[in-house]
C-alpha cells in the first residue's frame, strides 16, 4: 500500500468520524429540546444548554449557583437506550443533598434555597452490561427551570 493511498484512507476515515460526531451532537440537541425541555413545565427554562453523549458507567459533573427566593426544577434525562441515569447533588463541603436513586431514579427534582449556594451535580449512567458486552451510549441532557416571581 503506497503512502498516497494510506493518506487517502486516513482522510476518508477522519471525515467519516467528524461527520458521525457532528450527527451524534445534533441528535443530543434535538433530544434535549424534544425530550428534556418539556419535563420542565410549568417552570421556565433558563435557556442554557448542557447535553453530552455518555457511555454506561460514565460520569459528568455540573457546577451552578442557585439563588435564594427562586423556585427551581432540574431535569436530567437520558435516552431510552441507556440504563437509569443516577444523579446526586452536593454542597460545597461535598455533603450529599439529594440523590434520585432514593426516589426511584426520578428524572426531575424541585427545590428552593433559603440562601444562595453553589451546588455540584454528579450524573452517572448506570452499568447493566456484563464484562465483554458493548456498553450502551446515548445523550444525557441536564436542564434547569425556574418560576417567574410576579
Amino acid at each position, binding site marked *: 500500500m503506497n503512502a498516497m493511498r494510506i493518506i487517502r484512507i486516513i482522510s476518508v476515515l477522519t471525515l467519516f468520524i467528524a461527520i458521525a460526531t457532528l450527527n451524534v451532537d445534533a441528535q443530543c440537541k434535538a433530544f434535549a429540546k424534544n425530550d428534556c425541555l418539556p419535563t420542565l413545565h410549568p417552570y421556565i427554562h433558563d435557556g442554557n444548554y448542557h447535553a453530552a453523549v455518555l457511555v454506561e458507567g460514565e460520569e459528568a459533573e455540573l457546577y451552578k449557583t442557585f439563588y435564594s427566593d427562586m423556585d427551581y426544577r432540574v431535569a436530567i434525562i437520558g435516552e431510552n437506550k441507556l440504563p437509569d441515569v443516577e444523579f446526586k447533588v452536593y454542597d460545597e*463541603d461535598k455533603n450529599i443533598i439529594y440523590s434520585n436513586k432514593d426516589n426511584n431514579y426520578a428524572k426531575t427534582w424541585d427545590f428552593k434555597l433559603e440562601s444562595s*449556594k*453553589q451546588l455540584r451535580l454528579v450524573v452517572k449512567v448506570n452499568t447493566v452490561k456484563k464484562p465483554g458486552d458493548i456498553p450502551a451510549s446515548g445523550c444525557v441532557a441536564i436542564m434547569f427551570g425556574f418560576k417567574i416571581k410576579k
Partner: protein
Amino acid sequence: MTILSGCGSRGGEKAQKTEPATEVLKDNKQAIQDVKQAEKIFQSLPSPLESAMLIKSAGAKFDRKFLNALDNAKNYSTNRSQALNLGIYTCDLSFASLYDQTQLIIDYMNAAKKMADGLGILDAINQSTIDELEENINNTEVIMKIVSETFLNSNSYLADNDQPAIASIVLVGGWMEGLYIATQLVDEKEFNGNKLVGRIIDQKLSIGVLLSLLDSNKENPAVGDLIAQMNKLKIVFDKINITAKPIKTEIDKTTNVTILRSEVTTDMSLATFKDLSNVVAQIRSSFVK
C-alpha cells in the same frame, strides 16, 4: 456548554453532618481543583434570563438608560464583540421583557438577532420568532419562553458546532450585563439591607465557575483578554466574605419541593461595593464600545 477532559480520582462522598460555618469557596480553589479531577464538566453560569429575573425579584426598578444602546449594534463586527453583545442584548431583552417594555422587547430581540446572525448562528432568531413575539407582546410567560428558546438555539448551535469559546464569551457577556445593571440600580443611600446588594454578593459564588469556563477555552485569544479582566473582578469579589453553615434539607409534603436551609452571613462594605461597581462598569464599557 463546556466539557473538559481530565483524569484522576474524585473527592469522596461524605454523609451530611453538623459542621462549623466555613468560608464559601475560599479563593475558589476548591472548585478549580474539583474541575481538574473530573472527566466531563459543565460550568453553568446564570443565563441572561436568570440574571434579569434575579434583578426583578430583588424589587429593582426598570431603567432603560442602563441597557446597551441599540445603535451600538452596528459597531460590532468581530466574533468577540458579537458574542459578548449577544449575551448583553439577550440580558437587556430579558430585563425589558420582565418589565413589560413592549417596544423595547421587539427592538432588543432584533439587536440580539443581528449579533446571532453575525456569528453565523443559523435560525436562532428568525422572522417567525419576531412575529410570535409581536403576537404575544402582552403575555410575559410566552415572551419568557421565546427568549429562553432563542438563547437555547444560540448556545446549543455553538456547542454542537464546536465553538465552545464563543459560547463561553456569550455567557460572560450576559452575566456581566446582569451584574452591571444590578450595580447601577443600587441606591447607595439605602445600601444596608438592600436585597439587590445581596444578589450582587451572590455573584461571588459564580466567579470561580466563570474563570474555569474561560480557562477551558484559553487557547482562543479573545478569551485570554477576558480572563485578565475577570481576574480584576475576582480581586474585588475576594474582599467580600460569605460564611455558610451546612445545608439541612426539608421536604414540603404538599408540593414535593425540597427546601435547602442554611444560615449564611455576608459582609460587603460600601467602599468595596463602590470598587466593584467601578470595575464592573470599566469592563462592561470595554464590551459595548
